[in-house]
């Protein structure tokens, strides 16, 4: 258990947060390597099942990040995600998963520093919560 490292899945939208994460790299802002990123066209593509499935498969934390409200490349995909997010985070408790393991943020393509802060924060919180036990 001593060498446990949190395994975190990050779902990022292509236009804002994925570009923001690229900017984090371009500006060489360090963050923990625990997060692995899956690219989506838009957070509107986020199926609540992905989150539940992620935990089922053993992820310790999930982060979903998209464009700020109003800035969606597809006008309003992120707003639909925002609605689903509220429902999913309530649902998680019913599955016996602490909803504090599930994070959502808005990171724009120009917020490279913010992305590294978000990841640091998420990783730290998951570290505090410990591994997800079945």
């Amino acid at each position, binding site marked *: 258990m001593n060498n446990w*490292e949190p*395994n975190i*899945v990050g779902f990022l939208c292509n*236009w*804002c947060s*994925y*570009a923001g*994460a*690229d900017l*984090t*790299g*371009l500006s*060489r*802002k*360090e*963050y*923990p*390597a625990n997060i*692995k*990123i*899956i*690219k*989506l*066209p*838009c957070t*509107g*593509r*986020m*199926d609540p*099942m*992905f989150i539940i*499935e*992620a935990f089922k*498969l*053993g*992820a310790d934390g999930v982060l979903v990040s998209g464009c700020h409200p*109003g*800035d*969606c*490349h*597809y*006008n*309003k*995909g992120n707003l*639909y*995600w925002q609605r*689903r997010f509220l429902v999913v985070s309530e649902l998680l408790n019913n599955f016996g998963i602490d909803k504090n393991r599930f994070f959502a943020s808005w990171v*724009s*393509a*120009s*917020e490279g520093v913010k992305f*590294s802060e978000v990841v640091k924060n998420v990783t730290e919180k998951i570290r505090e919560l410990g591994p997800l036990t079945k």
Partner: protein
Amino acid sequence: MARVGVFICDCGVNIASTVDVPKVVEYAMTLQKVAIAKEYKYMCSDPGQNLILDTIKEYKLDRIVVSSCSPRMHELTFRICVNKGKINPYYFEMANIREQCSWVHQKDKEAATKKAMKLTEIAVAKVLRNEPLFPLYSPVIKRALVIGGGIAGIQASLDLGDAGHETVIVERESSIGGRMSQLDKTFPTLDCSQCILSPKMVAVAQNKNIKIYTYAEVEEVQGYVGNFTVKIRKKARYVDMVKCTGCGVCTQKCPAKTSSEFNEKTGDRKAIYTPFPQAVPNVPVIDKNNCIYFLKGKCKVCEKFCPSNAIIYNQEDEVVEEKFGAIVVATGIDIYDHSNYGEYGYGKYKNVLSGLQFERMVSSSGPTDGHILRPSDQEEPKDVVFIQCVGARDPSKGQDYCARVCCMWTAKQAILLKEHLPNSRAYIFYIDIRAFGKGYEEFVRRAQVDYQVTYLRGRVSRIYEKGKKLRVLGTDTLAGGQVEIDADMVILADAMVPKYDSVKVAQTLGIPYDTYRFFTELHPKLAPVETVTSGIFLAGACSGPKDIPDTVAQAGAAAAKVCALFSKDNIEIEPTIAQVNFSLCSGCETCKLVCPFNAIEMREREIRRGVKRSIANVIESVCRGCGTCVGSCYCKAIDLRGFRDKQIMAELEAVCIE
């Protein structure tokens, strides 16, 4: 049988110095269906691409994974390469092991190597579930929309018009001309700004391919590259554009006065007015908020005196809908609001002016007819202090960036002051002098040597009134000490800031903006006029501070990009769009409701013999592939090509299962 080839790039030392690439290669070889994994120094280079092509042949590969930089950088490069190797470009995935791995985990090489392995595994998992996709084609409407009629918009329209493309300029003010028309002279040549701008304005008006909508705004933009539908609101100007001859009698006779925006509130204008004498079109507008008739119901002086019966008090806004193939955004800038600098006393002291106010004062068509006069008592000033970097290079005000033009702008204004009033003294407080352009350094030197302008390196801490003068307290960091100057006037070199409603414009167009609210280019170096939304281009200072030469160059570049787009009759659009599984669709219409582009229509379909049902159908040319419908489908009847459920699930498994 799928045979995957994995190619891992060192990116010189960018990846290889943090990630142990041979280990990643070794790991990749152990992955399911991977036939071969190879390392190369620069995978994107010609030899790198040839390596991929040769390996495809040698190992009979049918799917390719490249672990290198961000797909935003080289996805297209490799797709083209893969296609050359006779593999469908969508049998290709990229693992981002540079921006999202080696560059951000430099301090933990072991973790970075492990993560690079994982990211490669994720890409392999996905590529195994990929399917061949073929580009869709969509016709290009060869009409361009230019938003903003400043020098950027004017130049872009002229270039487009000259190339034979129908172009529409939409300008918010009642005349084209923009910021440049407010300037008196331009650096470093000291050309009169109006003299070089107004011929271009006239050329725009006379070009048969260019249509100008002034006093109009873009309200709504729908569609995609080659096929935008734009709603334009033409605000009521209460003057008939056709009948008006521009004689100006109405303006002369109008009894209502208010301060002039064009003159930066240093002079007055009438309620029926053109912003400046060289206005194009030379048709006035009635400012409803100051017109006596609109306020009190009586007056009608303009109507009485108008010789051509051009006044229409009951005119209403008109919304027109037009189709365009490309959009050039040239919305320009505002000037930094000094009220944030209380210590400079702008607004409190009459003799503290903004740079643009000074510009209007020096202009012979300005409120003082070109005489430099102290606003408090209309006397000629002796000592004038210029302060640079107001709202620029100042993190304490959240304005970290350099506004680029102020060094030159201030030098020019100091020279103009000395030319108008040879006995005056000019002092410039600066941080650094950034005279980067052609002939710029020489120009600043002229100000210092020929015109004896005193340059003081330091900030001003405070300004207060003392008698008729302004006491300016500052530092001179080169001489090392405090400086006190009793000035007659203080001119603040305001920074360029984004237009006040730039966010709204960005949201209307669906283009990103940076932390300062300037629009973001597709790539800061290699794609400076493109945006992430194809078909929408940027020109001028709306994407960051620019001087006139850079603006004109960029406007030309944007026009050239539009011409390149218009050189084709059809353009390829990404095939990663939604697809309905008819047998699963329940016809609930949720997808139709959430689709941001109205790309889903309900269609009667025979699902079994004799059984007809209304089922969702994706209009392929309209779908942009956001996947919002997929995320909201209750029946899992709709899926997104390129981002199918099974593809994302495979990625998820790769991440989660150690």
